[in-house]
């Protein structure tokens, strides 16, 4: 965090000064470790074993917060008795289909239910997807790696029937939809055993599942000595309970994995067991890779979402293609919560898009919305470019030639395009690959053969334009333009407004002035009337007002909405993103508020504006006990005022205000009144925090350890080596190396991991062109331990060549004791650290090989995120060969490792290949 979020880290330092214990778990010793109370070196890709070990510690020592767990989680809920855990199926849960590599989740359900269907969740669930809660968020860094489509949270699927259509969910990355609110459970009528003794209750299933995650197992898998591990367990347990809370902070070290969503779930299980959710100082905090990654999922740059986590409709799912059908897939009138008003949110969005053209008799122009036909995530799109089915590409502040996995595939794909628009501050490598990319040097591409027309349009930086950032706490903060953008630089708002204006003008004329075509009505009917200033810059303030929404008719016509509860399905309101409604309440840009902390309460509600409803901590009903009293004075946050019969407190209560703690809904009651008075997790269909996810996830109801796509060790728990549902792409241009005990695995004996340095930003577009930053980290380097340096003859300051199954890159060498060899499964595992800021080009002040070129493309099934935090490699002293010799070197490695299309790409690990090394040990 000190490395990549030094400004936010000031608060960690302040907490430390006030007595907080800071523990840093990371493969390398970073600037965070330097000031932490304890650094725990861990093998990259083994975190679920570590987290599972903590779960086991909590359960086996009875250290959980029993009152909280019984009342607020699904620990007491009884599961179907035909659910079979991984230990009995050699590494897969029941319902696995080895043919498709997917699960039928029917056996994962609660007893008495064959399936569960779309969410209960209400606004609450949705907003939750935002990121401050348990299972959300990798957003951050998909953009860091430049994957427009993957930035959604690691939230679980908003799927329909749990057993229904996993393949379809996977195709559209359903993990993002509806904020991944999980599943509706009708009215929360589940079988419970509050003694937690029933062998099929979640608590007992969880206990059995994690029983194998002992400190010894953690040592074998993660390389963490038991004394270090137990010290962490004790610190976390001792700092949780009525009087104290513990927070977990993560970023893409957890998300960029083929099992990344389950990493976050692992932390969620711990936090629920210890009672650290919905309480001040608790939670799981996703650190984002950019200032407004949260905003880019709220008002999404994702292919499968509409604003406010409304799902993007799919062609084959809505045969009649009507608004009513679409809304019906989001929510049923019987379910709990605010999603029952999904029609109002959707119609208001359509009115914001198409204004007067959107009328009840034309379904408010619903048919104008493009419909999905399948996976259009970043990596699928890149492969589609290679197949020449994608002709054009916009890159907006994104540098896939450097920042995305498998840089070679990215660059080759762009060479297939007809046109490419790059809007960036500098001439990034993605704009110049056609003349100076690595493939030009190897001879794989020749400039004269590339037909891609590249348009470079210089962009304005954030200080050169107005707008908001939405950060990880869902806080919108306005930034004012400080200076005019220089020269031809323009804001993205300017670019898109005028692009739209010119396209509309041309389409209105039609070809040869013959007038507009019917097919162009969606563009021509758009409301496109933002006021512009003397430079032609549209008003960002007007855009925010449109997002907030306004009354279109009645007494308040023209006035901004103050809450999404004012939205109507009859076309009398508009609003571009329902969860943001209120940011312009009372006609005031609430995101501009900057009241200093000392002038208001410690929750600081008057700094910026948080969605939804300016609420700062989600699920805060859980900060009070089942009777509505604070768990302790020290941790009082929101509580029930029995006299006034309302919830109140320091923050905006995250609960229906008049629902008393002892309220129990009648069977059949839907909407907000369907929530019982002790159902704080109003995002979930049963109102409880999910220690076990009966639906919503495509790869298992509980996190279980799998090795990465490439790993030098075999899975110590069972035969199944890697996530059996990971998305693999067995293509000749996407080879994977052998793992574990497979023949040839010793050719790539080392683990490498990638990361950012404080001095640079992501793929370097904002830093490698700046002298004051470039001089601070002027060259691409690898970090190795003295032991590995000795093993491979590497010299500090010299050169090393790092070879993966895809390519070989060269880097300067930093030999440092900050890299520690780990003892894993009886052998030494060396880890190599690679910052990924550099790329091959000719325009930046500092250039170098790109660490991301080493990766292939293998994805998490839930959110299509790529595994770019761990893979295997070899390291050689000296510089790499150039030209065709480089290709020959890589081919030689592939031959020695015996790599075929099948290598690493069999989702279910074949029998016999991988003896479970810990069995019987």
């Amino acid at each position, binding site marked *: 965090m000190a490395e990549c979020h*030094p400004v936010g880290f*000031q608060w960690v*330092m302040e907490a430390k000064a006030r007595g907080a214990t800071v523990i840093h778990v990371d493969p390398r*010793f970073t*600037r*965070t470790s330097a000031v932490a109370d304890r650094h725990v070196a861990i093998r990259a890709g083994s975190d679920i074993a570590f987290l599972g070990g903590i779960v086991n510690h909590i359960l086996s020592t009875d250290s959980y917060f029993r009152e909280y767990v019984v009342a607020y989680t699904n620990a007491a809920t009884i599961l179907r008795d035909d659910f079979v855990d991984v230990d009995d199926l050699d590494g897969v849960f029941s319902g696995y289909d080895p043919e498709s590599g997917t699960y039928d989740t029917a056996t994962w359900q609660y007893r008495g239910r064959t399936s569960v269907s779309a969410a209960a969740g209400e606004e609450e669930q949705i907003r939750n997807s935002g990121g401050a809660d348990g299972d959300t968020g990798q957003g951050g860094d998909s953009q860091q790696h430049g994957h427009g489509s993957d930035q959604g949270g690691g939230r679980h699927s908003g799927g329909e029937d749990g057993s229904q259509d996993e393949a379809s969910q996977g195709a559209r990355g359903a993990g993002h939809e509806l904020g991944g609110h999980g599943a509706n459970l009708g009215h929360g009528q589940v079988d419970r055993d509050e003694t937690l003794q029933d062998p099929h209750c979640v608590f007992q299933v969880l206990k059995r599942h994690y029983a194998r995650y002992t400190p010894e197992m953690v040592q074998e898998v993660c390389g963490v000595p038991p004394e270090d591990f137990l010290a962490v367990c004790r610190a976390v347990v001792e700092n949780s309970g009525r009087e104290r809370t513990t927070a977990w902070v993560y970023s893409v070290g957890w998300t960029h994995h083929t099992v990344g969503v389950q990493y976050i779930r692992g932390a969620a299980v711990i936090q629920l067991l210890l009672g650290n959710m919905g309480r001040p100082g608790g939670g799981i905090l996703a650190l984002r890779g950019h200032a407004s990654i949260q905003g880019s999922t709220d008002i999404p740059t994702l292919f499968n979402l509409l604003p406010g986590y409304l799902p993007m409709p799919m062609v084959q799912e809505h045969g009649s293609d009507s608004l009513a059908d679409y809304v019906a897939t989001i929510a049923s009138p019987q379910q709990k919560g605010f999603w029952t008003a999904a029609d109002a949110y959707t119609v208001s969005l359509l009115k914001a898009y198409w204004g007067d053209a959107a009328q009840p008799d034309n379904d408010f122009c619903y048919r104008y919305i493009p419909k999905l036909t399948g996976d259009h995530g970043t990596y699928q799109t890149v492969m589609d470019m290679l197949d020449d089915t994608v002709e054009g590409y916009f890159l907006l502040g994104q540098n896939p030639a450097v920042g995305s996995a498998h840089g070679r595939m990215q660059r080759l794909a762009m060479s297939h395009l007809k046109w490419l628009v790059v809007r960036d501050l500098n001439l990034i490598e993605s704009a110049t690959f056609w003349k100076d990319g690595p493939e030009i040097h190897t001879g794989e591409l020749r400039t004269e053969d590339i037909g891609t027309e590249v348009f470079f349009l210089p962009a304005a930086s954030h200080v050169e334009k107005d707008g908001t950032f939405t950060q990880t706490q869902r806080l919108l903060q306005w930034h004012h333009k400080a200076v005019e953008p220089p020269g031809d630089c323009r804001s993205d708002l300017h670019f898109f407004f005028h692009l739209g204006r010119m396209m509309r003008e041309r389409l209105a004329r039609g070809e040869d002035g013959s007038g507009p075509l019917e097919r162009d009505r969606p563009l021509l009917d758009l409301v496109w009337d933002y006021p512009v200033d003397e430079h032609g810059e549209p008003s960002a303030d007007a855009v925010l007002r449109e997002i907030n929404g306004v009354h279109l008719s009645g007494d308040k016509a023209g006035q901004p909405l103050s809450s999404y509860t004012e939205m109507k399905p009859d076309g009398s309101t508009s609003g571009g993103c329902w969860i943001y409604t209120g940011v312009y309440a009372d006609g005031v840009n609430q995101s501009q508020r900057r009241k200093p902390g000392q002038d208001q309460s410690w929750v600081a509600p008057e700094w910026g504006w948080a969605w939804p409803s300016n609420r700062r901590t989600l699920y805060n009903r859980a900060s009070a006990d089942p009777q509505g009293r604070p768990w302790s004075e020290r941790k009082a946050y929101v509580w029930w005022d029995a006299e006034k019969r309302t919830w109140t407190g320091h923050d905006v209560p995250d609960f229906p205000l008049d629902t008393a703690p002892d309220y129990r809904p009648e069977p059949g009651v839907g909407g907000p009144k369907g929530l019982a008075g002790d159902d704080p997790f109003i995002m979930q269909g049963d109102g409880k925090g999910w220690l076990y996810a009966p639906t919503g996830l495509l790869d298992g109801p509980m996190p279980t350890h799998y090795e990465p796509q490439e790993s030098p060790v075999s899975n110590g728990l069972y035969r199944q080596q890697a996530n059996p549902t990971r998305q693999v792409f067995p293509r000749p241009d996407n080879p994977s190396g052998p793992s574990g005990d497979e023949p040839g695995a010793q050719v790539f004996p080392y683990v490498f991991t990638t990361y950012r340095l404080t001095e640079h930003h992501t793929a370097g577009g904002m830093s490698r062109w700046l002298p004051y930053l470039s*001089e601070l980290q002027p060259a691409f380097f690898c970090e190795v331990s003295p032991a590995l340096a000795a093993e491979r003859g590497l010299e500090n300051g010299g050169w090393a060549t790092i070879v993966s199954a895809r390519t070989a890159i060269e880097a*300067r060498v930093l030999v440092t*004791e*900050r890299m520690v060899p780990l003892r894993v499964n009886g052998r030494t595992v060396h880890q190599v650290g690679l910052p990924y800021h550099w790329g091959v080009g000719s325009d930046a002040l500092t250039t170098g090989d790109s660490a991301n070129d080493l990766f292939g493309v293998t994805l998490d099934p839930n959110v299509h995120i790529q595994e770019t935090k761990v893979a295997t490699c070899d390291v050689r002293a000296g510089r790499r060969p150039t030209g065709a010799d480089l290709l020959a070197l890589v081919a030689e490695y592939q031959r020695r490792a015996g790599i075929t299309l099948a290598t690493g790409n069999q989702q279910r690990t074949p029998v016999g290949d991988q003896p479970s090394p810990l069995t019987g040990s």
Partner: protein
Amino acid sequence: MTLTTGGVPPVRAGVAAAVPDGAPVRTADPDDPARKSGWDGAPRRKGFFTDTSICIGCKACEVACKEWNGVPEDGLDLLGTSYDNTGGLGASTWRHVAFIEQPAAPARPAVDLGMPARHRGSAGPGADRTGDTAGASTGPAERTDFRWLMSSDVCKHCTHAACLDVCPTGSLFRTEFGTVVVQDDICNGCGYCVPACPYGVIERRVEEHGPKNVGIAQKCTLCYDRLEVGRTPACAQACPTASIQFGDVEELRERAAARLATLHDQGVAEARLYGDDPDDGVGGAGAFFLLLDEPEVYGFPPDPVVTTRDLPAMWRRAGVAAVTLLAGAAASFLGRRR
């Protein structure tokens, strides 16, 4: 000594506005360097307290300094010294963050400083060495884990500043804030100040760093221009963890002593202050530090002494020698007459 107050307004207009209560707080200390340099009614002496125990090595100070002061980039070289690619202070580096990787070492005996530290009661270094710090993993006697120390270095703005003493042009002068600043339009590039500095801070800019001020001696000004309008120096403003603290030296010394006491209470026995002592060889630095190891570890001289300290004595001796010589010569003539 290079700038006297004849006709110069003692406090510039902007300073008054900087003080919250509206009235400029002026120093009452007769030993205040600004006052001794002839500033009447000078504001309180300003300086830095750099608490390296909370430095996260982000280098925001280096960047903010260069941005504000227009200091050029000075080399895109990977130095191979941990994350430090700056190297050290110089004409084009006015803030420098050192990164020191300390291997896991077996228990080391507590080493006494070679520097003249003023022991302020229990806050003095080593005061807790004999105390019960069992369980503390960070004390030198107990520490066996790996450490990565970071520290942002800067001009010390000495109370007795040799650079200023030797400057023949008056380019280097003592400001009303008690800081030492080069006037680059007066400096003639003679370079006398360079060897005079006991810390190796000041340096003449070389041509490779760009066309600005080539040959001119350059160093931190404690953002004199920002101070004049009541602003915090750029580096302290940018520091996210308040490792670099700016303020009145007197107050900063109290803050540093309190922080040291806290760390000692927490068992960080090796914490010590560096440069805060008015009785040290430079009369106390305007920019001083809290360190977690001996000064040499961070590249600081353990016992800095103003290089002009002995000048008066040397001149006295030279004078005595000259008088003696003259007397001897005269005596010999007189003697000859006899």
